């Protein structure tokens, strides 16, 4: 009947072997570059600039210390964190109510709003930094944490809307109705019934918003001069920075993102998959 029934056992075994080694190869392809970066970050500056390189780190922290003590780095780290936190708050604060409205109500104009949100996808959003740079100069938001966070929110908000939309859609409306019959107001029902159920998912989408902002380069480089974020700092220093500064910086950029992605791994597929439909 099917093709597997007619295939000899030896061929199937070989197929299995190819399959497993293929997976191992793909894992190595994904993990090896990160490992190599960490080797560089955990070696002395001399080792990083020397040749040939060892594939095993000497577990020396002097490169990282050099990076952290470099002028402007701590400030850049702090700015990155602040911008990402503000982005996170804004995109969930604006996005979650919209996601809730989309999941619970049918109303004229719903499709228009969804179109507006989905349309953002067809636009190269970091370019917004160009006109906004002028606008911010006029209102005194130039080179500020809030200004950059506003641009990053345009990147993260559509995701927040669509993710929370699918989250709330997964919570039956009947639960809220039961709360209404027990005398809850709409707001109480939301706070006491829906929110506890949706909270882990909302937290996960907040983490995504954080990572989106943390990783963004173009707008950060255009909009910040004195108050650079870590990405903007690394980007602007590419021309003159020594290798150990570059690699320690890249490691500092990668590490929090790895931790965050690990923390929300349960939601990774459900959210990205559905939110992108």
């Amino acid at each position, binding site marked *: 009947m099917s093709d597997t029934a007619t295939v000899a056992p030896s061929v199937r075994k070989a197929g299995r072997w190819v399959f497993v080694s293929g997976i191992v190869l793909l894992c190595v392809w994904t993990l090896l570059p990160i490992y*190599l970066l960490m080797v560089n970050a955990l070696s002395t500056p001399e080792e990083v600039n020397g040749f040939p390189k060892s594939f095993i780190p000497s577990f020396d922290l002097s490169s990282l210390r050099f990076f952290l003590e470099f002028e402007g780095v701590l400030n850049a780290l702090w700015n990155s964190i602040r911008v990402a936190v503000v982005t996170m708050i804004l995109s969930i604060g604006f996005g979650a*109510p919209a996601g809730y409205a989309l999941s619970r109500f049918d109303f004229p104009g719903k499709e228009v709003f969804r179109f507006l949100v989905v349309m953002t996808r067809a*636009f190269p959003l970091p370019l917004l930094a160009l006109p906004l740079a002028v606008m911010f100069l006029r209102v005194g938001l130039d080179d500020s944490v809030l200004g950059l966070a506003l641009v990053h929110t345009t990147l993260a908000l559509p995701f927040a809307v669509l993710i929370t939309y699918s989250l709330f859609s997964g919570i039956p409306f009947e639960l809220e109705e039961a709360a209404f019959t027990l005398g809850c107001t709409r707001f109480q029902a939301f706070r006491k019934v829906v929110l506890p159920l949706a909270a882990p998912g909302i937290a996960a989408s907040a983490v995504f918003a954080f990572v989106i902002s943390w990783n963004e*380069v173009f707008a950060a480089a255009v909009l910040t001069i004195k108050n650079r974020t870590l990405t903007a700092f690394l980007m602007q220093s590419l021309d003159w920075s020594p290798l150990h500064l570059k690699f320690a910086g890249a490691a500092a950029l990668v590490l929090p993102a790895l931790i965050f992605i690990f923390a929300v791994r349960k939601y990774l597929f459900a959210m990205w998959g559905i939110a992108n439909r």
Partner: protein
Amino acid sequence: MPRYLPYLLLLPATVFLIIFFLYPFTQVAIESVTSNGEWSLANFQKATSHWKFGEAFKNTMLLAALVVPIQLVMSLTMATVVQKLQKGRSAILYIFAIPLGISDLAAGLIWLSIFEQSGFLNSMLVGLGLIEQPILYLSYQSPWIILFAIVLAEVWRATAIMMVIIVAGLGLIPREYGEAAEVFGATRWQRFYKVTLPMLRPSLQTALILRVILAFEVFAVVIALGGTQMPVLMSETFNWQFNLQDRGVAAAYAMVILAVSVLFTLIILRALHVPKEART
């Protein structure tokens, strides 16, 4: 239930998108077609007459044309392979998804650590006795190697986003369809081509649109690996805005990027058309 409640809930997001998305894009569009307060195409003329424009345009398109098909094949392979796993599925999926959290700048620097002259590639080749002296890969004399390194870094970093969308899409295809095809004697390839791929069309559409647009926005990877050797549209936009301080020309560049993005979105939407009834 008050009738205005949904509008009240949508208000903050809508107002935000109008002020920080629609308005600035009209601003940049207007800026690109005005110079000295008058309507003119001078900005576009200035942008396109500069020798770097053709280079940047060609490089951007070439990169997208090389990167996206490789990513499509790889993400489909990864997603289908993972589907067949019985054990360790979520662990493997997590590993495949890791680059999702890595910024393009970090990805560029990671691959720089491999390709720079005292980097890991040379260390390995010398260690194996294949070469005697470390080779300078990322130089203006070998633009093809720079291109190759950028393609590798982009494929490494951004395949995960396509894979995640495709994995989610595969999960939505009812098992019965494949089983029915099997009953009728379809081979594994036939099942993939005639059942899985067509059913996957909405996810493929989204994944491709997202990836193609991000490919036109390629910036930090290119700067990290190629410096100024390899101009792309985004880096030239940055250059005009920041170093040459000509916002009009930068706006013209932005319009070019926007135009190709929208054009390709429409092409993908048309090519992978999903009938309304088939939407889930």
